[in-house]
């Protein structure tokens, strides 16, 4: 950018160019930047979606207008049933996630429950663990006949029937909820952090006990956050591909994502897939609208200018019950699945249990030294996610800056576009990217570029929310001081604002990096032979049900993620992943 600025200030040699430049000279560089950003956002967000919409009305081959794709997409009971399954699954999962997370958030934020650091670790670990890996862990735990939990249950009670069958609707919902509840936790906890104790005190003075005050005062105040978390989990669930493929197929539950995958069978019917995906978009938009409507009727102001005091509520013996709840969630979401996965990864045959003669390093050796693709996919994952995180944060920072400083008219439009992918299911976005950029003229199919762009677009909202919060914390006066002293705007950004928000941006970068490194539902449609990521390779391995190799590869993925989480904690602070911005 600075280069352009300099070039623009030089008078051009030819008269024609002079007038052109002369006109441009009055344009502030920031306006040019605005135009570039608009172009980038149109390319990343708007065009793939519009293309998807257009394709849904096209006849395959000729491209003529038709409504037949919608007829095909919804013409069979099985396809409609998949949509209903997805919606039911989303509702049940989101409900379970809220039930799991709200007591945890309340306990950590408002009470004197012990082991808060431990609870943080549980939430973080559940968030970091890729859902499909958790799903494999749960197959090993709760397979009706061979799962360790069910074996233990039968041994202890002598019962015939399993305690819990993972291959069921409830199993599928629970497994997804155990890896998505952190979203609710993050939302609700940060909202509860803002509620001052005075509100609860007022309730206590009027005779309400702790329980009533929590139920009638604290929780209703954070109702928007609970609803927000609920909707987010719902959206995550209906867009999830890995877990339904791994658990849903044996459980014989077809959902939207597995059905979309079927439309990509020979002959590839992108048109029908696009038509089939449209209701997902409508539902999402509808949900967000409904949320606005519900929340607009009431006020939820919990922050006032008076700066209330925040004291932990004393729970007495009850705090142990609450701690038990948090520990229980940790046990089922993290500890147990992780333990069985580790066991499987070192086992010759995982079904034979934990004995010395069953131990082997075969699968780690295979992956690290013999498997042609394993290490390449590790490297792919790291650099795709790294570049995507850098692009997303860079783009987000510039947009956030322009919006925050109100530098251009209609800056809000930029913000809206940057947040839009938040409500687009990843798999829908992937199909949009496939339709828009896979074929010529760009012919990006199978290239690293396509995957990086898709990741950038998909996680732009996280980076944007992060950057907006960071920008809000920096008062413009510091930048203005620099400008008074003769610095250009971009110069001031680089030397004043950027260093001030560096830490927050690093946090944002790491979050995008980590979620991108486990992304499956977009990657699975876009990878080529040499651009497979770890998550796609894990999915390929899961096809043959070879859980030992799968577990070992999952172990490698987790070690890599933990390294980056560790770096994040060291550089940005322990709660960097979970800070709601």
């Amino acid at each position, binding site marked *: 950018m600075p280069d352009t600025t300099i070039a623009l200030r030089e008078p051009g040699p030819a008269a024609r160019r002079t007038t052109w430049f002369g006109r441009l000279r009055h344009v502030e560089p920031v306006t040019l930047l605005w135009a570039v950003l608009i172009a980038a956002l149109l390319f990343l967000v708007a065009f793939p979606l519009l293309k998807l919409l257009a394709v849904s009305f096209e006849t395959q081959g000729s491209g003529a207008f038709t409504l037949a794709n919608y007829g095909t997409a919804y013409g069979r009971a099985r396809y409609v049933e998949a949509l209903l399954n997805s919606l039911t699954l989303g509702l049940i999962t989101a409900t379970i996630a809220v039930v799991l997370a709200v007591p945890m958030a309340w306990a950590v934020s408002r009470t004197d429950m012990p082991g808060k650091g431990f609870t943080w670790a549980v939430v973080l670990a559940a968030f970091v663990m890729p859902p499909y890996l958790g799903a494999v862990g749960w197959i090993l735990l709760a397979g009706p006949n061979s799962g360790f939990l069910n074996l233990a249950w039968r041994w202890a009670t002598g019962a015939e029937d399993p305690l819990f069958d993972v291959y069921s609707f409830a199993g599928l919902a629970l497994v997804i909820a155990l890896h998505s509840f952190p979203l609710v936790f993050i939302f609700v906890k940060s909202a509860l952090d803002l509620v001052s104790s005075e509100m609860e005190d007022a309730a206590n003075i009027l005779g309400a006990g702790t329980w009533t005050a929590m139920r009638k005062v604290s929780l209703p105040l954070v109702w928007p956050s609970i609803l927000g978390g609920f909707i987010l989990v719902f959206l995550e669930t209906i867009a999830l591909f890995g877990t339904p493929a791994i658990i849903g197929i044996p459980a014989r539950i077809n959902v939207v994502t597995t059905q979309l995958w079927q439309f990509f069978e020979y002959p590839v019917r992108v048109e029908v897939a696009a038509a089939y995906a449209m209701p997902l978009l409508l539902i999402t938009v509808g949900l967000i609208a409904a949320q606005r409507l519900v929340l607009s009727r009431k006020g939820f102001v919990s922050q006032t200018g008076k700066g209330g005091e925040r004291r932990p509520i004393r729970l007495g013996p009850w705090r142990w019950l609450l701690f038990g709840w948090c520990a229980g969630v940790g046990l089922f979401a993290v500890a147990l699945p992780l333990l069985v996965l580790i066991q499987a990864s070192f086992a010759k*045959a995982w079904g034979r249990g934990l004995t010395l003669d069953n131990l082997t390093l075969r699968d780690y050796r295979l992956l690290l030294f013999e498997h042609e*693709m394993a290490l390449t996919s590790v490297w792919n994952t790291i650099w795709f996610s790294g570049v995507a995180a850098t692009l997303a944060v860079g783009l987000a920072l510039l947009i956030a800056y322009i919006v925050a400083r109100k530098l251009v008219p209609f800056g809000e439009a930029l913000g809206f576009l940057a947040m839009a992918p938040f409500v687009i299911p990843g798999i829908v976005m992937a199909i949009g990217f496939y339709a828009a950029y896979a074929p*010529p003229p760009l012919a990006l*199919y199978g290239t690293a570029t396509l995957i990086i762009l898709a990741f950038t677009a998909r996680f732009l909202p996280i980076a944007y929310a992060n950057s907006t919060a960071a920008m809000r914390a920096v008062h413009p006066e510091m930048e203005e001081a620099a400008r008074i002293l003769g610095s250009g705007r971009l110069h001031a950004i680089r030397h004043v604002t950027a260093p001030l928000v560096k830490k927050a941006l690093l946090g944002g970068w790491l979050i995008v990096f980590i979620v991108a490194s486990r992304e499956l539902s977009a990657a699975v449609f876009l990878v080529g032979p040499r651009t497979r990521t770890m998550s796609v390779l894990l999915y*390929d391995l899961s096809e043959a*049900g070879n859980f030992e190799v799968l577990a070992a590869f999952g172990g490698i993925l987790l070690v890599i993620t933990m390294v980056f989480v560790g770096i994040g904690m060291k550089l940005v602070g322990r709660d960097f992943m979970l800070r709601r911005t």
Partner: protein
Amino acid sequence: MQMITRRQLAAMAAAMAAMGTGAAGAQEMPPHERELHEAARREGEITWYSGQYSAEGSEAVGRAFGERYPGVRCNVVRSTSQVAFQRLSQDNRAGVAQCDVFSSTDFGHYSLLKREGRLLKYRPVNADGLLPALRHADPDDTYQSSFIGLYLLAHNTRKVSEAEAPKSWTDVLDPKWRNQLAVGHPGFSGAIGIWAVQMRKMYGWDYFKRLERNRPLIGRSSIDPVTVLNAGERSVGVAVPSGSTLLSIERGNPLRLIYPTEGVLATISPSAILRNAPHPNAAKLFMEFTTGPYLSQTVRLLYGESLRPDVPPPEGSRPLDQITLLAPTQEEAEKGVPEVRELWRDTFGI
């Protein structure tokens, strides 16, 4: 009941009998391979979409290829056959050529690809050394035999005794096997699609309606049931590959193969070079590797069937001339697999 013809069988048997004990050495590279190797080295790599052999077997084949032909790396893209075909179709739809050699257990894919003019004609010199029945998979040489898959029944010996175990393909329909069966999915596995076409031909679709009543655990790959049996999650695997089952037994899992009385499903499937292959010479070299003794030597260590008389069959597997082989014709497969896939989804709901 469709069988491999008597003549083919006799030819195979004769080849088996004539077979020596030692595998042909791979030290010397014959001139035709050396020439291709030179050209392939300039291309540097080959991308192989494969649904044949297990994930482990495919990786072993890719490695062995790289070892035999230094400077040419094999990108192994292993998935179930229908997913491999889906990847190929997605490439085609996007107008991007990424795949050099395509290997599927659903041999119906090849007549389709050939008709669409998407295969490159190439006759590997080494194909002349294949088992006689495999030598001419396609009269026009657009594809070559590269895989003999045998699919049968298996049981977990701790859960079901040998005496109780089912003996035939229809035995598994008995209600006593309710919640005890495991099977792959024709929407993913090519072999399961072929198997479903064969069962439909022998017993009608009613076979699957009755199978559904026994609530089998449905995986994706035909190898899935082997894992499920190892774990003791289910006790009888339907249409499991002999290779993966034997390998599992060697590793100490309590499994046993059952040769169904009606016969064993055989998918004798080819591999083909794509017309738009980005690395045509490396692809030709790979076809020489496949049809030569090298692939057979590699896969037999993992209990894959040998394709050549000069490489002995894997240990513990019944010789091919002692079993009845069942298979639909190629036309039946091409037409039938998409049909049974839809029927399957209607019947099983997934």
